[in-house]
């Protein structure tokens, strides 16, 4: 950890590089940060909101979906990019020494800046739908932190596995897809039957995303669920960091 801190300038440069080169040769540039979850929200509004008539806790469905997609898009893109980070940075990892974890932190950091941008759009949307901002949004930074820690943890675990076996790289998007449906991204958690609720709240993202909506729209908080999800997040993070550091000893030999 001390080493990561000692290399914080490199972390800054890696994030800066990615932000800088990211949207070269695209016509819309950084607008994609916002467009992607917006388009997804549109798709889900048509199919889930209008066709399937999924309830949305009294919030207009497009806003409901977007508010779920903002944290979800952050999480899933951070995990899929940072999870493949080690092999993507293979040439660098085998030629220069720095704490490997820096790669994951940098890649998640880049997505974090995206998240900030999509927040702006979220607030504009809320304004359009006449949904007022409440003091409960002060909880958002905590939830963002939780999502970040979770993304770092899962990415670390996966990248060590992917370095050894590329099978995990193929598995990752499938898992993320399943994870999205197992999280209250496009439907409210209360649709989950009561007897499955406990199991459901073991999914740490359920607490994050529900918490997100509660904080934004002033819906009641499910404190028990949020505490459970926080605890699961910390456990997963500790396990992943430990497992990554153990694997790290020989990663360079097999990458």
């Amino acid at each position, binding site marked *: 950890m001390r080493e990561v801190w000692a290399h914080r300038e*490199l972390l800054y440069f890696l994030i800066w*590089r990615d932000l*800088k080169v990211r949207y070269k040769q695209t016509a819309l540039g950084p607008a994609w940060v916002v467009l992607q979850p917006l388009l997804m929200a549109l798709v889900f509004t048509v199919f889930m909101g209008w066709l399937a008539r999924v309830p949305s806790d009294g919030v207009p469905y497009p806003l409901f979906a977007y508010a779920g997609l903002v944290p979800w898009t952050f999480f899933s893109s951070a995990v899929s990019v940072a999870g493949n980070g080690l092999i993507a940075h293979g040439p*660098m990892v085998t030629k220069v*020494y720095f704490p490997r974890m820096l790669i994951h932190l940098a890649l998640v950091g880049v997505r974090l800046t995206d998240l900030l941008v999509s927040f702006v759009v979220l607030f504009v949307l809320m304004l359009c739908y006449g949904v007022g901002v409440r003091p409960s949004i002060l909880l958002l930074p905590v939830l963002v932190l939780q999502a970040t820690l979770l993304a770092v943890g899962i990415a670390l675990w996966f990248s060590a596995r992917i*370095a050894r076996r*590329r099978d995990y790289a193929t598995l990752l998007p499938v898992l993320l897809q399943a994870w999205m449906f197992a999280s209250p991204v496009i439907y409210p958690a209360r649709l989950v039957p009561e007897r499955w609720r406990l199991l459901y709240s073991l999914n740490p993202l359920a607490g994050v995303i529900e918490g997100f909506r509660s904080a934004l729209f002033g819906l009641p908080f499910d404190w028990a669920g949020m505490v459970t999800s926080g605890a699961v997040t910390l456990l997963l993070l500790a396990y992943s960091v430990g497992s990554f550091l153990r694997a790290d000893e020989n990663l360079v030999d097999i990458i």
Partner: protein
Amino acid sequence: MRPIVQVRNLCKSYRLGQGQQGGRQGTGRDAVIWALRDVSFEVLPGEVLGIVGRNGAGKSTLLKILSRIVRPTAGEVDIYGRLGSLLEIGMGFHPDLTGRENVYLNGAIIGMSRGEIRRKFDEIVAFSELEKFLDTPVKYYSSGMHLRLAFAVAAHFEPEILILDEVLAVGDAAFQQKCFRKMQDVIQEGRTIFFVSHDSAAVQRLCGRALLIEAGRLKDDGPAETVVKHYLDGAAAAAARD
């Protein structure tokens, strides 16, 4: 004088087939390759140590272990000082970034601080002779320009212990001369340097001492002149046998 680098009984083994597709681990049938076997030596501050040996002898593995990129299978390495290594120049150059941006990025990757890069920036640019192209993305650079910029950053990297792997052979004759002179300056400053090169003449001219590594073992350790001669004689004999 106390040594600045101590290497004791260093061993590194690689398992062939490790991590490869379809290769299962733990079958115990994978062949083990010893890249380094029982290598021990000490280096004093200010020594310039050449490392020679044939391809695959274990030179790069040794440098990677010294740089902390690879962990040894057995043995110990003690380093008393800030170590920086250049196993490849231009590490992390991004084609879409400008020359100026890449100087900062590459500097940070090899271990320079932002302040250090800013201080030396003008010198680096002057050395590379690329003043006019600083704000051009490096993807539009010729390969020679690319190398010049990369070497310029590398040449201004000043850790106490410097590890160099085959980094001299860049650019045209004039630039190579300039790099060589820069290397001599760096040596004069009393830095400890590990220098791997297939350019035997350069090793003899730049290094005071040399190590000869053969099939993972330390075969010779002594004045660069004699060690290089030993290496060349061995290579000639091997060629004659073939």
